[in-house]
């Protein structure tokens, strides 16, 4: 059922704006904590910039068509909301999708007539190089990194390989067609690598095989670099990720540069701010000499400077 989204928040701020006729419509995909954090951060980031923010209690295709038929800024949070907006987009508003995976965002069905300069996003994905930054900083000396990708993600694997090479790493990518091939591929991969990079790919990594991937890597005493704090909690060695709040704030910064007159948005971006999470028990158990999280982050930022 796509015509209604959960009630999240209805907030009407007093108009203090130059864009008195325009609205900013925030549409979360779900009512979870993560979405609330992103909304809060977005709201805080927009505060004082004289803008109307309106989060509707419910959304129907009609409302979307109405809102996107005018020079408003629509901010869907999450893929489900972004897809809903794309499917009912009337093409006049600007769309800033937050917390969406890049691969999925690039395939949203935007109307042909919608000016692409008015569509942007802050992805949930980290920039490709950042994961390798983490490998270099947190696992010094481990230069042979393994990853698994489905063939649908061949392009991503190429990008990963290029970036790894640029950073002086050797990336071994195991390509699979189906989830059934993940186990054998992993067994072939692990003996040849010194770290395993989890790649967001629903074929190679999903809720049903994460346990097996983590256990197989642990048995081989291979540290695992993930892309979410949940993976670290489950047993990955370390992750680099952006919090919903960080994404919300970055979205607010982009929205601040938007005007109803032009409607243009900055290009889609990966999160600029990030967090590091380390499973210290796994680190100790694997006898890794890993800096503490703050130090890792500091060094990663230095590498980027």
């Amino acid at each position, binding site marked *: 059922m796509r015509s209604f989204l959960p009630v999240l928040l209805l907030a009407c701020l007093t108009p203090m704006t130059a864009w008195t006729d325009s609205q900013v419509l925030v549409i979360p995909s779900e009512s979870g904590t993560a979405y609330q954090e992103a909304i809060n951060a977005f709201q805080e980031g927009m505060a004082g910039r004289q803008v109307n923010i309106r989060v509707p209690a419910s959304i129907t295709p009609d409302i979307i068509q109405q809102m996107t038929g005018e020079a408003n800024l629509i901010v869907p949070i999450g893929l489900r909301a972004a897809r809903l907006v794309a499917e009912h987009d009337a093409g006049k508003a600007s769309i800033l999708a937050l917390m969406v995976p890049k691969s999925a965002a690039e395939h949203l069905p935007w109307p042909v007539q919608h000016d692409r300069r008015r569509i942007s996003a802050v992805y949930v994905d980290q920039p490709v190089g950042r994961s390798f930054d983490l490998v270099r900083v947190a696992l010094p*000396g481990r230069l042979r990194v393994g990853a698994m990708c489905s063939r649908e993600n061949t392009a991503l694997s190429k990008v990963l390989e290029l970036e790894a090479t640029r950073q002086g790493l050797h990336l071994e990518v195991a390509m699979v067609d189906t989830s059934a091939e993940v*186990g054998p591929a992993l067994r072939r991969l692990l003996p040849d690598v010194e770290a395993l990079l989890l790649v967001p790919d629903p074929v190679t990594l999903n809720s049903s095989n994460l346990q097996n991937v983590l256990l197989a890597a642990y048995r081989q005493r291979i540290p695992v670099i993930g892309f979410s704090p949940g993976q670290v909690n489950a047993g990955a060695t370390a992750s680099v990720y952006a919090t919903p709040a960080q994404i919300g704030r970055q979205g607010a910064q982009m929205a601040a540069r938007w005007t109803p007159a032009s409607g243009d948005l900055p290009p889609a971006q990966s999160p600029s701010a990030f967090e590091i999470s380390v499973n210290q028990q796994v680190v100790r158990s694997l*006898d890794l000499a890993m800096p503490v999280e703050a130090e890792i982050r500091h060094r990663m930022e230095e590498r980027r400077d």
Partner: protein
Amino acid sequence: MVRWSSSIALLLTVSPIAASSSTTQDLTESDYLAEPQVVLTASRMVQSVMDAPNAVTVIDRETIAGSGYTRVVDLFRLVPGMFVGEKSGWYTVVSHSFIDEWARRMQVMIDGRSVYLPTFGGVRWDTLPLAVDDIERIEVVRGPNAASYGANSVTGSINIITRHPADVPGRKLEIIGGDHGQREAWFRWGGGGDQVQHRITLGRREDGGLKYAQDDERSNILDYRGDIRVDARQSLSLQVGVVEGTRGDGAVGRDQKVDSHSLQVDYSLQLDKDHDLLVKAFGTGLSTQGSGPASLPEQNVTGDRQHIEVQFNNQHAQGLRSTVGAYLREDTVRSQYWFNTGNDLKVGSGGVFGHLEWRLSPHWLLNAGVFHERYSLVNDKTSPHLALNWQPSQDHSFRLSMSSAYRNPVVFEEKGDVAQSVTLPRPIGPVTIHAITGNQDIVPEYFVSREIGYLGRWPSLHVSLDLRLFDEHLDNYIGLTANQLVVSGIPISLGGFPVKIWTFGNWGGVDQTGCEAQFKWQPLAHTQVIANYAEFHMDSHVTSGDIVQRTAPSHMEGLHMMHRLPGQVDVNVSQYWVASFCPIGDSCGTPAYRRLDVGLRKHFKLGDFPAAAGLQYLNLHGNYYGFYQHSEGIVDQRAVLDFRLEF
């Protein structure tokens, strides 16, 4: 290494590399935000050697593969202070100090299953259903570990962790041929589905043994392991092992038939992310029977063991975890010759244990453990262990450790009765004498250890250093002493020599000090250099006549190099130096020796299948006495070829 740290928990609760159904679906933010179930719970993770309360040497898979060795016992040469002796081609002795044919003071386990023999103690390594390539890693605790594994772990413990079926998929064939009639064939299959995975290994081993000894070995080996993921929280593991065959036993026409079997079941229940429950049950049996026209009654010995234990692991808070557990065991031995009865002799034992690992601060770690046991042959005994680790940084750990431990008498020491009919000079005539008798009054050996340890690593240099200084005292030493046979008040002599009978007793103590060191440089995954050094000083106050003073070589050194050359060629060179020693019960001592092993192995593809061919040349320096100093105990050179194919 504390009990919870054993990799058993990990290995028994893992599930196979499962495959979910193949579905093409979009990635969503949920993939980044989800909180998946905790997989690596505290008890599944092995304790870091930096945090261990003991000196631990881990022989991992890379080292096992790189060593080139095809016999399990040879791997222990890589451990500082560990003695590997060859009494015969099939009877090998692995001992950490107190070198003894029965190596009674060290515990040995396979996946947590004790293979320490109840009858005479020690391990019959030739009867273990174990192929080198089925070993994932070996954890060797150098020093007392009774607080973790109970009595008999007084000078160390070995836990051999086997490979999970999911890690050895497919079929593997290995053919080995070498000097002295060494012929081996091994076949392994690993496979299964999402929920159940199997590993089965079948082996045939023939070996002519040592050059001058009647010590042929012929064995058929079966090793099965099945791992079942019941659901996300429960798992079950089943292991079955069989070794049956014959051994040349010192003379032509004197063979020993061997029948060894084991069954082990492990159950794991993850209660929540901080608590889990492990249950282990196993039964083992070893039967040897004399065969052939020259066979002797002493070859007929049977020993069985039934064991069950429960372990509960808790993560109380960050930096504080504990484990508590209990076990029950029954050993049954039978031998008309050694016990002068055809009946089963049963010995029961049980105990409770607990451990605490408490990180007091980022730089201080406290490990405390205690094992309280009741053994039917002696009173209750308690073995505590306390260790404090100071870790000024994550790469350096200084350890101060104190522990006490007991070694319970084996059944023969308590109940042995070797009765012999002899005809004595008139007026006595034929009588039955008890040539060796156990002693119901002996008390367990008591072992107190103090040690200072250091473990340091320099990641940028790929270097690590392990040091251990120890000061140990063994009290109530159990040994044999001889007295002249007295019949009807008459001391008996034959041919002018007194006829002696032997009795076990507690005979004083031994002080032992020493140090062990291991330097390791591993710049690449397939390249490592290991240098080992161990020094033992024993001051014996034993009054039984045993020359305990020299039951550890005054020093042992080892230098091991493993490297992968271009073209997928592995080369390994290992040199050992062992100072002279005198095994317990021996009087003449065994001279010092050197041993040099070198090997090459080429990895290649046979069609699409990985294959390897290797040549190992063992003991290039030539003859040395493997254990006792007699001509049948000479170990000489041996070339071994092996070929393996995975398909």
